[in-house]
């Protein structure tokens, strides 16, 4: 985090005031600048000749369309909770409403708000030195009804070595395949560590009957070695990833593939680009249909 040499003095107790939130400032927002691209010739020159050459304008269009695809209703609507249920005899009584519950019920935050809050908090947490991390209280200590979510997220995988169980790196695909221990024969199953409660066990109770071809090297089956008990416990104990970390990546193999384009009009392969807006169409006929709309939209 760029902080211009200013170190924030430990001030982790952020009062959770309603109505505002810390938001991490992560530099220039690509989506915002894409929405209002500066229309200079210099921008054009930067377009790289990659399989995904998209201009800022196209990026903005894609972003707009993806947001539209995420909507619940086409128009903005608000459906209030029917009033008759609110407080007269129709209401189901669950006893006294506690302040925490009242706050939750009145909250009109959306998921995006919650996510922004969470991101801001985790930025604050990760910028603190690890010694400031609060100790996890023992179960007997009385705790507030509003636990600061800081205490739960102290062992995030980003603070290296802070958590007792470091999460395995996410991109170990190539490494793990290369570093795979030499495959061993299935007889080795007797050697798997059998502790009091093995997490994984090869089913060695039912040995298959011996066969004269058992020693034929061409027929030997190979299986990779199962991870040890400690490895498994470490894996099972790993804390959950955050919402953003769990989002599946765009793997490099897919990035190298050319993106498929489809005709805006009929849905066939988009082989022709409109000279005017960059939209894709399949052939002359669809281009004509497209240009009718394209020219009127931009006022020709």
């Amino acid at each position, binding site marked *: 985090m760029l902080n211009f040499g200013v170190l924030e003095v430990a001030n982790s107790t952020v009062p959770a005031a309603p109505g505002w939130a810390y938001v991490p400032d992560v530099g220039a927002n690509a989506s915002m600048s894409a929405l209002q691209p500066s229309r200079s010739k210099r921008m054009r020159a930067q377009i790289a000749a990659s399989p995904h050459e998209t201009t800022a304008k196209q990026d903005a269009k894609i972003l707009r369309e993806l947001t539209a695809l995420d909507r619940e209703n086409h128009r903005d609507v608000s459906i209030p909770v029917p009033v008759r249920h609110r407080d007269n005899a129709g209401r189901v009584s669950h006893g006294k409403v506690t302040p925490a519950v009242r706050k939750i019920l009145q*909250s009109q935050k959306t998921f995006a708000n919650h996510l922004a809050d*969470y991101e801001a908090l985790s930025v604050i947490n990760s910028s603190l030195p690890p010694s400031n991390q609060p100790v996890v209280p023992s179960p007997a200590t009385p705790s507030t009804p509003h636990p600061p979510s800081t205490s739960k997220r102290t062992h995030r995988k980003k603070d290296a070595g802070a958590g007792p169980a470091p999460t395995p790196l996410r991109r170990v695909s190539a490494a793990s395949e290369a570093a795979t221990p030499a495959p061993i024969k299935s007889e080795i199953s007797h050697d798997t560590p059998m502790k009091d409660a093995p997490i994984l066990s090869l089913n060695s109770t039912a040995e298959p009957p011996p066969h004269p071809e058992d020693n034929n090297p061409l027929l030997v089956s190979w299986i990779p070695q199962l991870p040890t008990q400690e490895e498994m416990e470490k894996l099972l104990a790993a804390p959950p990833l955050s919402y953003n970390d769990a989002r599946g*990546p765009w793997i490099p193999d897919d990035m190298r593939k050319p993106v498929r384009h489809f005709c805006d009009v009929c849905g066939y392969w988009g082989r022709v680009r409109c000279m005017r807006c960059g939209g894709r169409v399949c052939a002359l006929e669809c281009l004509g249909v497209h240009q009718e709309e394209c020219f009127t939209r931009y006022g020709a």
Partner: protein
Amino acid sequence: MAPGHRRTKSSGPAPPARTLIIDNGAYTMKAGFSSPASTSAPSVIPNCMARDRERNVYIGSQLSKCKDFGEIVFRRPVEKGYLVNWEAEKEIWDHEFFEGKAPLRCDPRETGLILTEAPNALPQLQTNCDQMVFEEFGFASYLRCPAPVLNAYNDIQAMFKAPPRDPTKPLLPAEIILLIDSGYSHTTITPLIQGRPLQSAIRRLDVGGKLLTNHLTRLLSLRQYDMRNDTYLVNEIKEACCYVSKDFKADMEATWKGPKGDRREIYETAGGIAKDYILPDFHKRTKGEMRDHDPGLAGKLKQLQSGKAPEAAEDILTLRNERFTVPELLFNPSDIGMRQSGIAELVMDSLSALPFGLWPGFLANIIVVGGNANIDGFLWRLQVEIQALAPTECIVRVVRPADPVVSTWNGGAELAKDVDLLSSMSVTKQEYDEYGAAWVARKFGGDPNWKW
């Protein structure tokens, strides 16, 4: 989970006689009761408040009384798979579970609760959930867990045509499964060992039923009718007509009209791909219907275009490449410019976070649940794509349960039959009152030092 690890129950009250299991999805919630003695089939309840064009408001299961779905709008308390708006959710739960004439009426003080959430939930939302369950509703005991986990308690091996498990033996979660949950908001990939998720390998693809429906809406609105205010209808079209293509390029060629002045013969029927969907008008016809495409049949749109009176005709949408390009987004999200890889690639990405020794087990036990698993051809395509990416020696098996929508619920019902196992995993109201919300959050939160 060995018996030695189970927490001995403190001198609390006996566990509640029956358990309410709620699989709280964004589109529908699956709810019903289970107890060691009996399990009823779950009710699939729309998890929404809806308003039609006469401004009638429907709550949850009232939606089945709705006769006119034209221009209906929805408010959903679950957003992106996570329970966000408790004001609306409480209204729906009250209507379904607690009111005088509720279809699944229960007294929360005498009922246990199993509630599912999507994996990787935000801690604040989890805390809100715990507080509402205990402080507002006051359930006797409560287990909050990621939805994929419950699937491990189903009889997985029976899905793979193995002999069913012995009902006399104690319930054990499946040893090793890779669970793909493709729902309304997103698709998640969760590797599970002994019913416990491997958190570091959970991956999410932000393509779900909602995005598919909205994409189909967009295509139909551009090409035929403006359906943007009728997403409910488009969802029915999607469920009736869409399929995952076995050969995308060939299907695409078959549905091409050909260049100008050179119409392809195959175009009209597109080798059986072209289908007509008869739209409901909510007077004579309340339910849409799919038929094979009949080129001679003049629908309302055609009659309008040729200037005839459109009185007698039906409203017909002809679907061609829309049928398979829409579910294709699950396998190629980059088709609409999303910067994510498809399901098969994400499965391999998830496995790459795990030791190589576990790969054969996971690849041979892939279960697909969620509404999108019902799309024709989905399993076949997924199996082929994963097989292509996986090491050649590995066997890849992909199956779905008989009803992928309620599979998670069924797993929860199985779990609720084992009272000891369930009570060792859940939290009682007493414990909540004594130790507080933070303690509950840690117990459910996969704390590394926590022993179940």
